């Protein structure tokens, strides 16, 4: 079974976010770039399917050269090969543009399943997966916490997390799945894995190689335009509830909630 994993590199979740002087982007110096946490689950799931059914796991990333590191990490975890689409024309590409580039890579590949993360923890969009599934005309199941594949490898049964429960969705393969945390516990890259990854193929392509028109990507092709990035509003300073005993504090908190905040 051949599996494609779309992989995004994002700032580590510990990162402080600073807004650039033009108010339209964030400052990227001093940022530690990592594999998107949900994509780690996607890579792990792909490897488990490969271990059971055989086949190949291909990692696809769209972004600047530094994304190679995240792809190498996935290769070190056990994926077979990587493809990076790096092109200056891609600066400012939005979700639909990214999906178009991914679709252009994928049209030349043979696959049974595509795995994405539930969302990128940078722009928190959760759009690229479903955009891509639509462009490819394949079924999608998003926010998946459990995945079962029929013995003959033709049908996937995916448990999709919904508010207050789960839907079990059946889809014929090929299908696109987006991974939610809890799907699995991603493995760490082992030292031999890291050594081996250095020799695994990692192709770098431009949009011209893929036949993508520059007008469809980058800022000019973006359907969503950022007007401004702002810091979160400061919350008004809070109140510490004083009291001699826990009992006194609890009583005071209860009356604050009831009388001051009028919330209970």
């Amino acid at each position, binding site marked *: 079974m051949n599996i494609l994993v779309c992989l995004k590199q994002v700032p580590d979740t510990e990162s402080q976010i600073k807004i650039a002087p033009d108010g339209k982007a964030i400052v990227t110096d001093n940022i530690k770039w990592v594999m998107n946490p949900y994509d780690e689950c996607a890579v792990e799931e792909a490897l488990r399917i490969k271990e059971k059914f055989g086949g190949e796991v291909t990692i696809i990333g769209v972004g600047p050269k530094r994304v190679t590191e995240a792809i190498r990490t996935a290769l070190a975890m056990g994926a077979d090969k990587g493809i990076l689409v790096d092109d200056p024309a891609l600066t400012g590409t939005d979700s639909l543009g990214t999906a178009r580039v991914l679709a252009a890579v994928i049209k030349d590949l043979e696959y049974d399943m595509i795995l994405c993360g539930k969302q990128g923890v940078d722009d*928190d969009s959760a759009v690229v997966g479903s955009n891509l599934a639509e462009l490819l005309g394949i079924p999608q199941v998003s926010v998946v916490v459990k995945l079962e594949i029929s013995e003959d490898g033709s049908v996937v049964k995916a448990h999709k997390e919904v508010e207050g429960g789960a839907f079990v969705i059946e889809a014929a393969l090929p299908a696109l799945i987006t991974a939610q945390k809890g799907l699995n516990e991603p493995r760490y890259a082992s030292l031999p894995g890291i050594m081996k990854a250095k020799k695994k193929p990692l192709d770098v392509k431009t949009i011209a190689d893929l036949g993508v028109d520059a007008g469809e990507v980058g800022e000019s092709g973006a359907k969503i335009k950022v007007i401004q990035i702002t810091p979160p509003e400061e919350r008004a300073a809070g109140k510490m509830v004083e009291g001699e005993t826990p009992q006194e504090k609890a009583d005071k908190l209860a009356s604050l909630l009831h009388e001051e905040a009028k919330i*209970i």
Partner: protein
Amino acid sequence: MAQGIWIVAEQREGELRKVSFELVSEARRLADAMGQPVAAILLGSNIKEKAAELGKYGADKVIVADDDRLTTYTTDAYVSVIAQLAQAQEPAIILLGASVQGKDLSGRLAARLGVGVAQDCVALSIEDGNLVAKRPIYAGKAYATVTYTDSVPQIATARPNVFELNEPDESRSVEVIDAEFSLDDSQLKTKVAEVIEEAGGKVDLTEAERIVSGGRGMKGPEEFAILEELADLIAATVGASRSVVDAGWRPHADQVGQTGKVVSPNLYIACGISGAIQHLAGMSTSKLIVAINKDPEAPIFQKADYGVVGDLFEVVPALTEALKKVL
């Protein structure tokens, strides 16, 4: 010319979800600013009688797509129907809930219509006839204000519990229309094999108006009983930090934070939670935050409206008792 604001109502098991009314309420405010009508799109089976409820919150028109194959949400069927309606009638704006369903549907619908989508918005406005959306990025460490180019319709999803509900107006009349659409079974490539409802039927964290959350300070799974007791009293849902989930004390569905659920309740009570950046990311849009922690230096206090420094095993039961008296 594209005209009007549509909202996609959301139902489960034939009951409208609260986010549907929040969407209608917000659409009404935007539409009034534009001098345009609001239509709600309602998909399901035998669902028509629910249309009036949407009218009370401000929908002028409800377009009902009734079909057995629309009983439970599937991406294929819902996108197909909504895309057909949108192509035929050209609304200017489509709003959906930033729920699991709305997020799944919006991306696929946007790609089918070749337009952009702004996901998980917390504020919406109209400028020069265009939708302007404000949405948290980097888990709420920043906010992006975005608009659209070359997109008809302009699609956005609204974070549940953020947009204010209109006062329902019982006297408002609403026009109910049967949607014209065709659904071809060959397009339906996914099927819902089973719907699993969690035991207890508690309000989901993302929709809860009150949340009582426990962290590693809870010491163990049994100790959550004191949080359950407080939660039962004030009709809250119990949440947890990732440490608690990783330790196996609570299921993953209970996790609040950057890699768990993003919540916006009216009241969030954090007990024995330190306030790591990834946890704050999931709850910082809560309207009122209470922190109970024995460490006065815990970062959670910087976000708290009311902070109590103390042992939660003493404070929480005492709070439950105190609230029983005022309720």
